[in-house]
């Protein structure tokens, strides 16, 4: 397969979902079944092509980067800088090739699942169209070779998530969540955009390779290493928004208002993964300080959201916070320098988290229908306290869900074990190298928490007994279109797809293909190099594995002890530490905090601005007008009364004009400063002042309804050109003055030619 063919296929993969969007958004009503199978098959074609591209790239051109670009904007010959052009393009390296498959596989299977889950929805066709544009935007982020397109598709992902989260926009909570997601993401985006501005101001290019080459050759953004660090952190802020990192994580749990398959799509391989992908993409330009910042943000995110997850009762909320926590893991992994491990976790997590969400979708779907069957419209179908013992009724959903849970908990033989273990080893190595041991401590603690809250979920939902045996009698397994994706994701959660050694991801093809790129930052501010880090990693590996297995096992044990064997009374513990429990149930009060400060503050400022604009700024304007009016027309706005004022105005105008004329004429041509030039200017000034006054009077004094209507009746525009000739000039009426002006204008036109 040639380079050209790979590029063409990549472009085809990118554009296919866009085609799906365009066709479905315009023609969904005319297509059979509103085009669901069309959209789904288009994505499966894209998936097939992605697999082809990945295999071709990894086997034949593993060490190459295949690029294509075109000239997008030509800035011409820029003064002081010379010719400047902006080229945009796509690239296929191993990162892109693997990510393409990860994105299309999740997207295609979510399409398939939605055929069952969403059938009968009010906007069924439009839903599939939105899935299409979502996939397109995400693929755009993947294939781009420059920051500009990255930002473009970045925001398009924001748009498509807005559309999907707000799919059921009749619900206020859904439209609120959609809006919140977009705005919170935008806050991160302006950080990213500022980073892009810093880069562009120095390098005048957006292309990654050119920027990296520039930094490698010693050119630093705006001339200092500090700005390089700042640029790195600012670009990372984009990832903080998209990947829901602390403190911008608040949009993600709310985004559960979207349909459940959408949650799977958004929170597995697309959107939230985009931030991690961005960090991976810009990894070479990150300084040690920037990476440390990234590592800490990731660690804090992982910790905060894991603590929240243990106290939630909504099945999707638990998974949402688990996503945030796992994203923190990935970001932390990249931050500590475990580049491959962080990205690897993105891929493995994409599979099992998509599965978890689709599995929860299957559960919610079944519970919803069962409740509906029983005529119960009050019970929340997403609350795990209303579930129990579903494992026997829904075996496929249960066993696949269990597989994902094992994977996310990091149990051997799963993909999650491989990736998580590598990240934890990386954090331990980082601790050894830098002394920041708090990061591995958080890492292991969160690993234990993850195992605990995930098994809590499995036990409550699938094991044990019905709390109310009749309510869910009618429950049954979901149809094949829904269970098939679950099975595929479960299979993909086995270790064997990534490495044949169940205890060493580093031996697999994935680690082989995706090596950490060389840093381009100056040696003084660079993080530990690949060799140095590799050495430390080697030391910490077995310790990390032992520790991670221990904490995961502990977590599971506690979960069983509490929720299955009931040896520990969770409610009693919660009651005894009530403030802490409330704090966690209420998600650390982040929403309340932001509402009370940022949202409320902004609204207050807008009110103040509005008042200021209406009262002060406009008040001055209107005050000036009424003051003038009082002078010219008298207090009652009467012309006779205002005569004096008018005369005063004329006099002042004339005097000012004469003075101006005198000044100008004397400064221009000193010898012309005669008595007659003075008079000449004075007359001119008088005429100007008079004309201005009359126009002014015509406006302020004479413009009333009578005249306005009169003008309409007189076919006012005829005051323009034709009617005017036949009309007697009536002194003192507004149309006359207007007419004077128009006559003047016509005269000018007649003069010409």
């Amino acid at each position, binding site marked *: 397969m040639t380079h050209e063919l790979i590029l063409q296929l990549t472009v085809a993969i990118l554009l296919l979902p866009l085609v799906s969007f365009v066709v479905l958004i315009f023609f969904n009503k005319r297509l059979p079944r509103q085009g669901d199978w069309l959209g789904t098959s288009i994505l499966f074609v894209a998936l097939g092509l992605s697999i082809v591209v990945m295999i071709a790239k990894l086997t034949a051109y593993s060490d190459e980067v295949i690029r294509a670009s075109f000239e997008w904007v030509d800035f011409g010959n820029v003064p002081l800088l010379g010719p400047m052009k902006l080229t945009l393009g796509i690239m296929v390296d191993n990162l892109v090739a693997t990510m393409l498959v990860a994105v299309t596989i999740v997207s295609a299977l979510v399409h398939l699942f939605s055929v069952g889950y969403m059938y009968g929805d009010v906007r069924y066709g439009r839903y599939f169209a939105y899935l299409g544009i979502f996939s397109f935007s995400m693929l755009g982020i993947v294939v781009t070779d420059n920051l500009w397109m990255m930002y473009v598709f970045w925001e398009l992902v924001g748009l498509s998530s807005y559309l999907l989260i707000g799919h059921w926009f009749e619900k206020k909570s859904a439209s609120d969540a959609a809006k919140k997601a977009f705005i919170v993401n935008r806050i991160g985006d302006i950080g990213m955009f500022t980073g892009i501005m810093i880069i562009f101001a120095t390098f005048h290019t957006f292309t990654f390779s050119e920027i990296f080459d520039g930094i490698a050759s010693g050119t630093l953004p705006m001339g200092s290493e500090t700005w390089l660090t700042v640029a790195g952190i600012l670009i990372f802020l984009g990832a903080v928004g998209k990947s829901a990192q602390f403190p911008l994580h608040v949009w993600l749990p709310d985004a559960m208002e979207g349909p459940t398959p959408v949650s799977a799509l958004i929170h597995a391989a697309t959107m939230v993964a985009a931030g991690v992908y961005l960090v991976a993409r810009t990894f070479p330009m990150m300084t040690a300080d920037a990476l440390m910042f990234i590592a800490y943000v990731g660690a804090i995110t992982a910790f905060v959201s894991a603590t929240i997850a243990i106290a939630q009762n909504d099945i999707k909320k638990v998974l949402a916070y688990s996503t945030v926590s796992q994203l923190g893991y990935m970001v932390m992994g990249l931050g500590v320098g475990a580049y491959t491990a962080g990205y690897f976790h993105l891929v493995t997590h994409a599979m099992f988290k998509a599965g978890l969400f689709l599995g929860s979708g299957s559960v919610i779907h079944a519970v919803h229908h069962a409740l509906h069957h029983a005529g119960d419209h009050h019970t929340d179908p997403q609350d795990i306290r209303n579930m129990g013992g579903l494992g026997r009724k829904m075996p496929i959903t249960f066993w696949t869900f269990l597989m994902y849970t094992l994977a996310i908990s990091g149990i051997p033989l799963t993909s999650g074990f491989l990736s998580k273990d590598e990240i934890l080893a990386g954090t331990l190595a980082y601790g050894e190298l830098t002394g920041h041991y708090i990061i591995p401590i958080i890492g292991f603690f969160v690993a234990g928490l993850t195992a605990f809250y995930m098994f809590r979920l499995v036990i409550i939902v699938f094991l044990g007994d019905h709390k109310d045996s009749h309510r869910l009698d009618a429950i049954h397994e979901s149809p094949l279109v829904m269970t098939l994706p679950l099975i595929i994701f479960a299979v993909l959660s086995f270790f064997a797809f990534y490495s044949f050694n169940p205890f060493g991801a580093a031996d697999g093809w994935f680690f082989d293909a995706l090596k950490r790129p060389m840093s381009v930052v100056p040696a003084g501010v660079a993080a530990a190099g690949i060799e140095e880090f590799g050495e430390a990693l080697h030391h910490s590996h077995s310790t990390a594995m032992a520790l991670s297995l221990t904490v995961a096992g502990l977590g599971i044990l506690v979960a069983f002890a509490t929720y299955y064997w009931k040896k520990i009374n969770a409610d009693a513990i919660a009651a005894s530490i009530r403030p802490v429990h409330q704090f966690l149930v209420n998600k650390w009060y982040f929403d309340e905090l932001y509402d009370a400060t940022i949202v409320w503050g902004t609204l207050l400022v807008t009110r103040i601005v509005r008042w200021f604009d209406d009262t002060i700024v406009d008040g001055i304007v209107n005050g000036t007008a009424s003051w003038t009016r009082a002078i010219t027309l008298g207090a009652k706005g009467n012309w006779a009364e205002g005569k004096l004022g008018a005369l005063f105005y004329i006099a002042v105008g004339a005097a000012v004009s004469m003075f101006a004329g005198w000044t100008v004429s004397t400064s221009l041509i000193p010898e012309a400063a005669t008595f007659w030039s003075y008079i000449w200017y004075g007359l001119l000034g008088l005429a100007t002042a008079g004309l201005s006054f009359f126009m002014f009077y015509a406006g302020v004094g004479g413009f009333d309804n009578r005249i306005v209507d009169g003008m309409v009746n007189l076919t006012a525009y005829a005051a323009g050109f034709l009617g005017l000739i036949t009309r007697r000039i009536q002194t003192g009426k507004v149309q006359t003055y207007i007419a004077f002006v128009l006559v003047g204008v016509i005269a000018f036109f007649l003069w*010409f030619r």
Partner: protein
Amino acid sequence: MELQFLGIGILSWITFLPIVGMVLLLMIPKTNENAMKWTAALFTFGQVVLAVVIYFAFNRGMTGINSLEGMQFVEKATWIDIKSVPWFGRILIEYFLGVDGLSVTMVLLTALISFLAVFASWNIEKAMKGYMAMLLLLDTGMIGVFVSLDFFLFYVFWEVMLLPMYFLIGIWGGPRREYAAIKFFLYTLFGSVLMLLAMIALYFSVTIPDPMTGEKIHTFNMLAMMNPANFEPGSILAGLGTYWRHLAYIALFIGFAIKVPIFPFHTWLPDAHVEAPTAISVILAGVLLKMGTYGILRISYPMFPELAQWYALPLAILAFINIVYGALAAMAQKDFKKLIAYSSISHMGVVLLGMAALNTQGMMGAVFQMFNHGTITAMLFLIVGVLYDRTHTRDLDAFGGLAITMPKYTGIMSVGFFAALGLPGLSGFISEAFSFLGAFQTFRYITIASTLGIVLTAAYMLWTLQRVFLGQPNEKWAGLPDINGRELFTLVPLAVIVITLGIYPSFMLDLMTSSLNHLVGIVVSNGGAVAIVP
């Protein structure tokens, strides 16, 4: 480049075609409103055709600004030539038209917006004849401003435009039309008087040799005013950075700032917009506001290059205020039209920011933003107009759930709304991003502070969208008909342009590159006084 038809240049055609239409229109019997509408549509369509011809015939490589050779479709004739006026000497005013990369985009925009405005005016209820006549006169004034290269001619067109606008708001406007119209009129008049003073000062300072006799004569030729060598030594505006030059620059600036409008001269705008009929709001926001920024770029910058640099920082600060203040004020509005009016103030701030950058990216961003704001805000006002025609209210809280009752309308609305909030893939994003990229290179922190406007814009746009279109449908408007064919016809061309330029902006950017690089060169070299080395 010469393009003539019947011996008259294409720029004269495009400028005066509406006047011809207006004369014909006035002869149509009062009762035949359809004939009036179609006459106006036909002539403005002729203008669009001419604009398309200009687009394709325009030479992308020529510079213009201060170079006569770089101007295209030039028409030059003596208009007023009075010899031996006592003391004055000779008064020479030329009929001098031409376009370059700076003005050509505005000519295209004006032709398009005027054409669409006619269709947006289809349901005017009183005095159709007067309305259409005024609209056509306004059209001529607007195009005239953009093609004039003689300052006096420019001024004449500037004033010609003012009157029809005054009547269009004052007669066909909403309940407070008189207040709004007079406010607009006085404000603009105040600005133009200041501009007039600066123009006279320039006139007396600049001389060029008469091509026939070689005798030195004063001139209103803008190109001559851009050459520092033409300033008579000892004249009022001679030299660089003098007291008088500062005064003249400020006078010009206030004249133009009122039009943009720049804080604190902006309060006429919300009033005018709220009262004006839909089509007039479209023209006001779509074209008239650009005259302010166009004037600064066409007149202030090249004629006072050293002051353009001197005042770049204050301009950037004003730009920041416009962006953030406009956005905050927009967020607090309850009237749909007022909200969009304030959003215009915010978006025009982006133009100012790009201009203040004094570099190629900023300048291209600014001029492109002028075009994009023209199309996008026109869409927004048309969108409000559609709703107002059906419900006669603009209260943002009176609606809800329109996405269900009016799905097609919601679809086209989304394009306009998301373009306004700067969504990539739509044209507004590119001009905004270029303006910021350019400005960042000159004013780091002001630009970073201005990015706050990006978030605020998203917030108030999406909030508005949510209040009006999402949620449960308001039962009061249950039977509301969806957007009709004529309304779609006014919106779809704009949406197509917004999307096309959002993906491939070079269709428009290529027109302006050479001219704007040249303009940047003029400013940074103080009008050629300082050599610049690439």
